[in-house]
């Protein structure tokens, strides 16, 4: 028995020393909180953005963490107990966070690359005076489907997600705002409706969909779509491109007649951030054309910095999934933040739909 103890003690000592050796150099820790699968990380010979940043600024150590929905990001920050220095929410969530004083205004002296951001991405409704945000990506929400199994005649609209022919092979997006937007688009409502009756009608439509669904998922759908466990899912265009890369039988479309969501994800600094200046350096770094270009090559979203296209793989820079034409984009609609009541009602309804309690 004593031997067991001594073995354990030696182990403890070894691990302890290992831990201490890591603490030797004092670096500023920069906490970055981003969407899952939303930065080039060196896989498949793409650039490793964080590694490059740390090479450029050897005094800063980036601690990287991910979330899979805007709501999860909000919950983590509002729940308290942790802080982050850089976050990358979507438009409507940014507006909500500004409203709740959760963001800190940026010092643009530290972000000279902001000048390179296209004018179309400035003065957006979520940040009308350009105080809090620097855009990171923009994109659309459409439908990913597997051409091997899905009949071409059935595609083209959101109704594919309700098609009983593919029951058990359909995945639904797992956050209230995007899920409701799809139902609202089918019903012809605005994607920003707060009318309780319209929200309830959308919830009913979502409840109708439950029997044909395989599951609700966010990034978890990568595996399911790539290995063909599921055939149809609504998701973000950039992620769709990454899945298509992995399984060429997959394809993506935006609804031909109905509306769909066009979103901007932008970098912000939470009000309780500890290292604002380093955070601004990081934001500036990600906005530089070379990095943005290399990054977008991997994540497959649109860059708000046109100059970055020079550094991109031309095939990607002209890809219609990442950069739909004007005419298509005109059908899109951006989210704006709902009121607290609207948000709560939508969350509650979505909870009930998912739990099978929907009417």
């Amino acid at each position, binding site marked *: 028995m004593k031997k*067991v103890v001594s073995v*354990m003690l030696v182990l403890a000592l070894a691990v302890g020393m290992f831990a201490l050796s890591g603490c030797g150099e004092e670096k500023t820790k920069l906490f970055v*909180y981003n969407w899952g699968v939303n930065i080039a990380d060196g896989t498949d010979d793409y650039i490793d953005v964080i590694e490059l940043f740390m090479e450029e600024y050897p005094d800063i150590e980036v*601690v990287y963490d991910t979330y899979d929905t805007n709501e999860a990001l909000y919950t983590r920050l509002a729940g308290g*107990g942790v802080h982050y220095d850089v976050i990358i929410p979507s438009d409507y969530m940014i507006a909500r966070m500004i409203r709740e004083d959760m963001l800190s205004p940026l010092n643009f002296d530290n972000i000279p690359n902001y000048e390179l951001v296209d004018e179309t991405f400035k003065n957006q409704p979520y940040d009308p005076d350009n105080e809090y945000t620097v855009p990171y990506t923009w994109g659309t929400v459409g439908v990913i489907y597997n051409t091997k199994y899905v009949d071409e005649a059935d595609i083209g609209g959101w109704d594919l997600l309700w098609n009983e022919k593919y029951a058990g092979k359909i995945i639904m997006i797992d956050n209230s705002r995007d899920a409701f937007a799809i139902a609202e688009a089918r019903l012809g409502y605005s994607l920003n409706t707060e009318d309780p009756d319209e929200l309830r009608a959308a919830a009913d439509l979502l409840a109708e969909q439950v029997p044909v669904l395989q599951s609700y998922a*966010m990034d978890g759908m990568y595996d399911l779509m790539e290995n063909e466990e599921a055939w149809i899912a609504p998701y973000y265009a950039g992620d769709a491109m990454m899945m298509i890369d*992995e399984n060429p039988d997959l394809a993506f479309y935006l609804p031909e007649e109905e509306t769909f969501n066009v979103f901007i994800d932008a970098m912000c600094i939470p009000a309780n951030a500890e290292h604002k200046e380093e955070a601004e350096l990081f934001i500036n770094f990600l906005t530089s054309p070379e990095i943005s270009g290399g990054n977008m090559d991997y994540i497959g979203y649109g860059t708000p910095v046109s100059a970055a296209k020079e550094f991109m793989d031309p095939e990607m820079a002209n890809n219609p999934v990442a950069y739909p034409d004007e005419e298509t984009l005109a059908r899109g609609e951006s989210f704006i933040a709902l009121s607290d009541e609207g948000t709560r009602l939508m969350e509650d309804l979505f909870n009930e739909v998912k739990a099978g309690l929907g009417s």
Partner: protein
Amino acid sequence: MKRLGKVWTFLVFLFLYAPMIVLFVGSFNDGRDLSEFEGFTLSNYLDFFADSGSLRLLANSFILAISSSLAATLLGTLAALGIHAMRGRMRRAVMTLTNIPLVNPEIVTGVSLSLLFVFIGRSMLGSDQVFGFGTLLIAHVTFNLPYVILSVMPKLRQTDSSLMDAAQDLGCTPLQGFFKVMLPELWPGIIAGAIMAFTMSLDDFVISYFTYSPNFSTLPVEIYAITRKPVPPMYYAMFTLLFFVILVVMIGMNVIQARDERRQERKKLRGV
């Protein structure tokens, strides 16, 4: 009948180990998908050793498991001695307290601790970053304590109380008596409790999930985040390596234990 039992046992072990075999095979797979073998490779192992992030997480998990099990063992052994001296209603009350973390669903324990930590952080420390190593340590010690107590208590009951009296009659101070007479009797229980605490802590996901921070995360928490995305196959390599490390450690402990038991038996025989 006997043969049937053996066949059944074999089938159950097959059921328990089949998924792990899938992970072993997956660790040598060239593709990312566990269900499709696309060719043999060792690159997953190389990736794992080259990835400072996952090594860091592994170290974090071990640091946490070792420190929380040591703290829980110390505190828990003292508590067991104290509880052993109690009688009646008080004893029952303390044992009920001890049972709470054992029978409370982990998710409730995790949620309740996270609410407490945020409250302490916000209203007492004025800080919005209480989560980290400290909160994880407190949480792990809390759910480890009952395991230590429940494995020390039976040993205390078995120990003859006259032993201490005899030691003191022979001139030991109570402290000496404790270290020379009691502790050797309790040792197996203490060790069993410590090992139990260590493994519970190492593999805990749910409670850590509610009390971690990005600054100090543990392996299971990170694996949960990873299983919600496409899983890099290097984690299968890590699983395989960990499996064999734990297997070797467990075999080692078993051999030591077996030798100990044999020695004790011999001692007993000689005594007769």
